[in-house]
């Protein structure tokens, strides 16, 4: 299950939903809003997404993970809207028979999300409000 959501992310529900009786392990990555970036204090982050394309790209990332590793369940959710320090911005959970597959697939997914999914963040800090520097999207076939 993948989604872009303006609602708060319930990481406990994601963990439970990723459980599978044939899986021996679950890897869960949770990204949250940090109170600083480099040398300035961050108070909140606004996340914006091109929802339709972002959800298609998340589905492609899930397919990529399933082709490479034998995984049981895959969940990835990314927030949009205004988030405060400590709020969860993204969660990826993968269950697999063994921990190696779960860890590797989870790392692959969050790494890909950061460079392939059309989501942008604007940081509100004491020094001003500005869009984060990011990764230029590349054509994928």
């Amino acid at each position: 299950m993948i989604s872009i959501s303006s609602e708060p992310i319930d990481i406990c529900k994601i963990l439970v939903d990723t459980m599978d009786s044939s899986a021996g392990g679950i890897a869960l990555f949770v990204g949250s809003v940090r109170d600083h970036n480099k040398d300035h204090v961050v108070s909140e982050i606004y996340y914006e997404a091109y929802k339709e394309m972002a959800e298609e790209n998340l589905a492609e990332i899930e397919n990529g993970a399933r082709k490479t590793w034998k995984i049981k369940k895959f969940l990835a959710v990314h927030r949009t809207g205004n988030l405060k320090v400590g709020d969860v911005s993204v969660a990826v959970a993968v269950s697999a028979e063994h921990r190696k597959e779960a860890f590797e697939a989870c790392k692959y997914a969050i790494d890909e999300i950061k460079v392939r999914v059309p989501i942008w963040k604007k940081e509100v800090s004491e020094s001003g409000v500005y869009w984060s520097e990011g990764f230029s999207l590349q054509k994928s076939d």
Partner: protein
Amino acid sequence: MTKEENQELIPSLVVVKLFASCREIVGKDKITLKSTDKMITARDLRRMISELFPSLPTRIQFVIAVNHKIANDSTTISQVDEVAILPPVSGG
């Protein structure tokens, strides 16, 4: 004049969605570009956007998405396509 010939004279309108910093620089979440060609390429679209909003390409290294896929210069665009310009991404 046949209906087909008549349609060829109607300029095509391409709606372009704008996101994040691109939207803020232009001041709109979508723009409509008019072309006398029924079909244009992503290279043409980039040139048209640069002419209308010269500060955009100098400030943002944007890419063009056509029907949710990243386009290359030769990707063709017609008015039925969903087009967007996307600044570098920063999710996570």
